[in-house]
Structures are given as C-alpha cells and as structure tokens.
C-alpha cells in the first residue's frame, strides 16, 4: 500500500506542478450583472424587480435560414416554433445551452483541456455514454442486441435517444390493455411470501375464507364487509382475508405488467404467482428503470409505478433526464432539500433584505420544460416524434432560464459539514450471535454551505452514511468483524476524482473481490472490477472527494482513507441499518451534481487521468487472480481546497470509544486468537490519528 501511496502522491505532485488548466469554464447561465454585451438587440434582459429574465419577453437570436443541424447549432423555440440557431450567439445573448445530445455526460466526465490546450480525456466517458445509450455494458463491451441497461437509479440516466425509443415503443404496445389498473391500485403493497411458504400461506387463506363464508351465511350478511360490521370480532380477520385476496389478484397483474415491459429474462425461470428470484430480478429492473429507491419487493413506490400507464412512467423519466441536463447546463445544486417546516432558509442579499434559498433544480427544469413545450406527456411525445433518432446525435437547445441568485460566481465560499447523527460503538450482537437493535433517530447528514455577505447559508442537505461494524480479512486469511468508523474533525477535500478507482486493501474479504462473468461464451470467475471501478458500481461510485488533513511544514497531507463519494448501494444510505466502511456515501446522481457544482464554482486545476501500473495477486482455491489497475481515475485539484467539518454526533449505547481490535464472527471456527489489526490500517477506525495509510473504504 505504501508503494501505491507513494505513486499516487507523486502523481498528484506532478499534476500540481505541471497541469494548471486555469479556472473552469463558467456556467452558461450567467448571473445578473454578468450578461455578455452581445451586439444583438434580441438579448433577453434581466428583470431588475424580480431578479429574473422573463422568457416571454425575450426575443430569440436570429434563426439561421438553413436548418443545418450540427453541433454548433441549437434549437430555440420562439412563438411556438422551433428554429435552429447558432449556439454560441445564443449563449452570448444570455441563453442557456442545454445539451440534449446522446453523447452527453455530466461536467465531471467531459474532456477537459490541459495547460497547453491539449485534450485530457476521461477513460470512463466512453463507457458512460455507451451505458446511457444501451450500447455498452459496465466493462465497456458491446451490449447484446435488445438488452437494456436501466442505470438511472445508479447515476447514469438514459439518453434522449433511448427515451425516444421507449416512448415510441410504449405508444404502440398493446399488452398493457389486458392489465387491470384497478386491481393494481387496490393494494398499497404486496406482502412478500417466501416461495417455500407459499402453499401453506394459500391454504391458510383458503381456510380463513371458508371460516368467514360460514360465519357470513350464519349471520345472513350480504357480504364480508357487512359481516365485519355485524360481528366486529371478525373485522380483523375479514380485513386480513380481503387484503390477501386483493394482493393475490394484484400479483397476477404485476406479473403481466412486468412481462409486458420485458422485465423477465428468458434464462430466469419464473413460476407464476411465486415471488422467486426471477420475479425479484424483474422487480429490480423495473425499479432501476423508474428510479425507485426501494428494496426489491412490491412496496408502495414500486406499486404506484406499476399502476401507472407506461407512457406516464416514461414521461417521469423524461423529466428526470431533462432535470439532469438542465442542472448540468446551469451548474446549480440547490434542490429544495434545505426546506424546513418554516420554509426555505434565507440570506441577506445585497439589497439588505432577506432572500429565500430557491429550489433551482426544480425551478430551472420547470422553466426549460415550459419554454420547450415539454411540460406535458403529450408535449414530450410530440417532441420525440418530430425529431428523428439522428437529431439527438448533436442536439442542443437554447432557453432563457431564470437568472441565478446573486451569490453565484466562479469562486464561491463553499464548505461541507457532515453530522454523524446517532452513533453506536457497541457490538450489534451478543456472544451467541443474536443481533441487538441499535436504533437511530438522527441519521447522518451531508450539508453544503455557502458563506456569502458574512452569513453561512445552507444550500443542500442530503442523507449520507457513516462507518460501522464490517467484515474484514485479517492476515491469517480469516474474516473478522472490525469497527470502521468515520473520522471526526476538520478536513479538506483537495482532490475530486471522476470515475475513481478503489484499490481494495488486503483486508478486503476475497469473496467480494470475485464474481462470475460470461467471458466470450465461457462462464468463469474473474476479479470483480465492478467493485474496484471505474464504474457506477464501484466502491467509490462515479465520483469521490478525498478527505485529507492538510500537511504542514513541508509534510504531505494526511489521508485516512475517508471519502465523500457516490454509491449505487442506495439502501446503505436510506435504510435504518445502513452503514459504510467509514466513508460518506451519496446516491451517484447527487454526488455528480455536488462535485460538478463545486468544480465549476471554485478555482481548480484539471490533473486528468492518473495513470498507474498497480497489480496485486491473490489466491482463491487453486487459481491466482490478479487485480490490474491502469488508472486511479480522472483527477481535479481544488485550490484552495474545500473545507470539511465532521461533527461527532450523539454517541449511543455503553461504549463511548470504538473497539480497535478484530472481533471473531460468531459461529466461525478460527485456528487461534485474532491477529493484531494491520498496522497500516490503524487510522481507519474511529478517528484514530495514528495511522497513515492509503487504505480505502
């Protein structure tokens, strides 16, 4: 690990000395007072009273006579008609250019320029685009014909080209007509019944049905509802029976719906009426397609989406995709997550009056949708119908978005505060392996602050993770539990890595480093590069900010392996029992928004691809597996670094400090006592400052 640390430090040093790319390009939405002085008379003007530019009064830049649709042009809607105009001229006129092309990636994955003007490509950009367009798989290999990725839930929204296909296909499909929306809407959820208990559960329902029917006949009630009224002692049974019957009926419709949408795969055999693995996988695909953060069961959000017509779901997906494109084009992050019971927080503006923090994500998306005629399902469908698939190769649109708040600029005084919430250091199980609940009322939160006009204002607040008890492989080859906490105190983020690679420390359980994969027709075990990255499934997600304590007196930064990064493991973020290995996780799409925003509103250098020649071997049964990593990811350096403060939170339970040794897993036979914790890993747990490792989450 020391070898890797030395190399990475050398790369960073090299980059800081030689790769100064200057400040990032400012967002195309310009704040009031910063509008370019365009020669055109058709420039939209800021409304001094409201601080916004009013779309309706803006005259569009002159449309070109010839409708040449190349990458230098953008669509503008004027008087309800589409015109193609020069994109640069539109941007100079204060229009925001929104990239609708199929080659879009978020800012962090775009090809940046080096100090000498050369392109600095990101290795992952091609894969991101391929995944968004259903042409590549997670390794960057061609996706089999007809396969879909459905990765929006993991931070990779589908391209507009893919959405266009989805809309047009669903408009013509007929199988949806046979699905009873009524039966789907009748239940809020469908309770999970394990496949091996289904017959018993069915028999129980039948028995209950006979019992109630007999009671109904005896009491001469017209229906079970009337029986429940006449005999309140049977009300609970009636309710249970009716719910189970409704759930069974809804389950049939769910199966039809999932089949209609092609969610079942041929190789996964599903038994009708059974919530088997094939069903679970189909539900997961449906959740991924519709960006539903729920476990893979038929819970409320999933059921709501199943009850909606396919085109309605497609339109919601369209709006989500539009939102990410607008957010990226405008360079905003404020998403309304700071709103409390008394509304959104305020700051004192230049006028001396209080101004509320706006939900720019929703506001700008809504504005763009309205101006482009995309604010209804029909409007979106019309838009996708009248443009050919080829149009989306280079499509960009120009819209006059509402002006950004006055605090926007290229050097915003941003900072991050992470509140660890309720923290438990106690073991979550006893000597017999019985788990003990460790309830939390306050969950960890990630907050982005802005200092403006001498005030600290909250811009965004998201749920995140802290570390907890995790399995770790010790030097004797056995797995133990170890408390892997999140450091407390002041840190900075100096480097942000897009498409980061996680170098699994030797303490990573080997079972998690392997996976089965179809390699050109051969089903074989390979190193699990999904976990290592770069990729949406990587331990570091699609982007990571590296926490360090700044070095002083010529000493290098101290890196204890803690990051704030994207993650596809959304349940670890949102579930009550979710923990990380010490890092602070965010859903990938939020991490992308966060770091794109920071990089565009803070001075930074583009260091580019951090090549390395890392290789490490390990044994699994009788085969040797070699982890081979050619790059550390694509790095940006914040200068000055971004301040981070991690609050201790509220320590619950008996132990007030974390356990620093390995703990044997209940039920596992070990050859001897646990070995000492690896010296280089000391610093990882619970904020001990003794370690100095490059160990990762």
């Amino acid at each position, binding site marked *: 690990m020391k070898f890797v640390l030395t190399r990475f430090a050398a790369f960073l040093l090299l980059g800081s000395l030689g790769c100064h790319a200057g400040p990032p390009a400012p967002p195309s939405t310009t704040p009031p007072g910063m509008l370019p002085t365009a020669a055109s008379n058709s420039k939209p003007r800021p409304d001094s009273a409201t601080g916004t530019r009013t779309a309706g009064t803006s005259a569009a830049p002159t449309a070109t006579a010839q409708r040449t649709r190349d990458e230098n042009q953008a669509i503008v809607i004027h008087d309800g008609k589409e015109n193609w105009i020069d994109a640069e001229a539109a941007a100079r006129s204060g229009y925001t250019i929104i990239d609708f092309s199929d080659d879009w990636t978020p800012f962090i994955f775009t090809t940046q320029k080096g100090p000498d003007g050369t392109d600095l490509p990101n*290795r992952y950009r091609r894969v991101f685009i391929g995944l968004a367009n259903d042409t590549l798989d997670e390794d960057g290999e061609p996706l089999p014909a007809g396969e879909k990725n459905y990765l929006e839930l993991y931070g990779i929204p589908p391209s507009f080209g893919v959405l266009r296909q989805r809309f047009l296909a669903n408009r013509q499909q007929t199988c949806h007509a046979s699905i009873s929306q009524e039966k789907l809407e009748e239940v809020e959820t469908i309770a999970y019944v394990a496949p091996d208990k289904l017959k018993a559960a069915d028999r129980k329902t039948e028995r209950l049905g006979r019992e109630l029917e007999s009671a109904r006949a005896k009491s001469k009630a017209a229906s079970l509802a009337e029986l429940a009224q006449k005999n309140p002692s049977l009300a609970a049974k009636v309710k249970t029976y009716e719910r189970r019957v409704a759930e069974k009926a809804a389950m049939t419709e769910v199966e039809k719906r999932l089949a209609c949408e092609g969610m079942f795969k041929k190789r996964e055999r599903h038994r009708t009426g059974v919530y088997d693995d094939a069903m679970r996988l189909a539900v997961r695909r449906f959740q991924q397609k519709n960006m539903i953060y729920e476990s893979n069961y038929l819970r409320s959000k999933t059921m709501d989406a199943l009850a909606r017509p396919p085109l309605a779901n497609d339109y919601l997906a369209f709006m989500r995709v539009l939102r990410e494109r607008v957010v990226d084009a405008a360079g905003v992050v404020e998403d309304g997550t700071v709103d409390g019971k008394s509304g959104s927080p305020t700051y004192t503006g230049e006028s001396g009056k209080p101004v509320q923090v706006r939900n720019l994500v929703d506001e700008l998306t809504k504005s763009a949708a309205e101006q482009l005629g995309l604010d209804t399902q029909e409007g979106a469908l019309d838009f996708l119908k009248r443009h050919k698939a080829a149009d989306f190769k280079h499509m960009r649109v120009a819209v006059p978005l509402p002006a950004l708040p006055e605090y926007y600029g290229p050097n915003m005084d941003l900072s991050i505060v992470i509140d660890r919430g309720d923290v438990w250091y106690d073991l979550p199980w006893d000597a017999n392996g019985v788990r003990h609940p460790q309830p939390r009322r306050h969950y960890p939160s990630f907050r982005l602050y802005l200092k403006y006009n001498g005030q600290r204002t909250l811009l965004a607040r998201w749920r995140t993770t802290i570390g907890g008890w995790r399995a770790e492989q010790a030097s004797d080859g056995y797995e133990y539990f170890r408390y892997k906490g999140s450091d407390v105190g002041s840190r900075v983020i100096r480097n942000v890595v897009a498409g980061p690679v996680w170098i699994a420390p030797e303490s990573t359980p080997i079972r998690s480093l392997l996976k089965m994969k179809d390699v050109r027709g051969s089903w074989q075990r390979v190193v699990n590069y999904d976990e290592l990255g770069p990729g949406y499934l990587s331990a570091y997600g699609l982007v990571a900010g590296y926490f360090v304590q700044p070095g002083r007196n010529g000493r290098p930064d101290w890196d204890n392996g803690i990051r704030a990064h994207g993650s596809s493991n959304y349940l670890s973020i949102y579930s009550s029992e979710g923990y990380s290995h010490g890092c602070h996780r965010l859903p990938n799409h939020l991490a992308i928004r966060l770091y794109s925003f920071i990089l565009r509103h803070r001075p930074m250098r583009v260091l*580019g691809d951090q*090549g390395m*020649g*890392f290789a490490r071997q390990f*044994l699994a049964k009788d*085969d040797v597996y070699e982890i081979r990593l050619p790059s550390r990811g694509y790095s940006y350096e914040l200068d000055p670094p971004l301040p981070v403060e991690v609050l201790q939170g509220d320590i619950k339970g008996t132990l007030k400090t974390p356990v620093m040794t390995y703990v044997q897993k209940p039920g596992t036979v070990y*050859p001897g006592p646990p070995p000492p914790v690896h010296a280089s890993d000391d610093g990882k747990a619970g904020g001990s400052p003794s370690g100095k490792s490059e160990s990762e989450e």
Partner: protein
Amino acid sequence: MTTSLHRETKASWRRSGYLLAIATALAVLLSVGVSAAGKGKKASDQAKQAESASEPDAASAAKPDTVRIIIQTVPPRRARVKWGRKSLGVIPTPSPLVVVRPRDSGPLDLVIRAAGFLPVHTRAYTFTDSRVAVKLTSLSDKSKLFGYREEPAPSPDGGVPAEPATTP
C-alpha cells in the same frame, strides 16, 4: 466481435530491438515484484519510471485505431493465453505474445496457464498500448500467495464454535 491478433515471430521481435526486451523485463521484475511485496520507495520509483517509459502518453495527439497488448510471464515460460473460450495463443518464450485490439474496445479477461504453475486470471485494457507481465507461482509455492489460509486443526470439541475472543 472482430479480433485482430498476431504473434510476433522471433525474427520480427529481434528487429523491434533488444532494448525493448530489456526495458520490458525491468518493468516486469520491478512492477510485479515490488507491488506484490509492497517493498521500498526506491524500487517503486524505478518501477514507475519503467512503466511510464513503456506506456505512451494517454493524451498523445495522433492515436492509431488499434492498441498493442504485450503479454509475458515472470519467469518467462511457454504459457497459453485464453480469452473466454478463445485461445489467443501461446507465449513464444522468450518473446512475448502481442495482441492487437481495436482501441477502446473494452477489457480482455485473460487466463494464463503454464505447466507446473497455478493458472493466473488477469485483465488487459484497450485504452492505450500496454504490457501485461504476469507473475507465475509454482504449485509448491501456493502457500506464499496472499489469500492462502491454513485449515484449522480438527476441533476436539466436535466443532462447537468458540466464543468471540474480544467482547468488550
């Protein structure tokens, strides 16, 4: 998927120069040996230099449509290289096996088998020209690999799990 492969003959390898062979061997010995063992700074710096010398700059201006992947083993042995079911050929020791692939066409998950050694699963990339130098481990040295674990001795208590040693 189209595959364009060719093995360099001994003669063409000679023509391409012994210098490359020496640089390759140095890079192999240093990078694999050092990174696997996690040894000193000086050696790692040398390895870095050797690797950076052997890997073209990712941002180089004119890039061909294909990349060359040079595959060899340490110690040099005749070894079969397979990519899924497809055999890419045998490393013609002392020359390496050279694989030409379309640039940026995704990684290759390879299995390298040599008589008397444990099979090695590794990966080659197509983002740029690269060298895959695979350290081979003899069957008798299996216990020296990370991940090897000694099985516990038969338990006198019939396998009843021990209580956790550390219960604070």
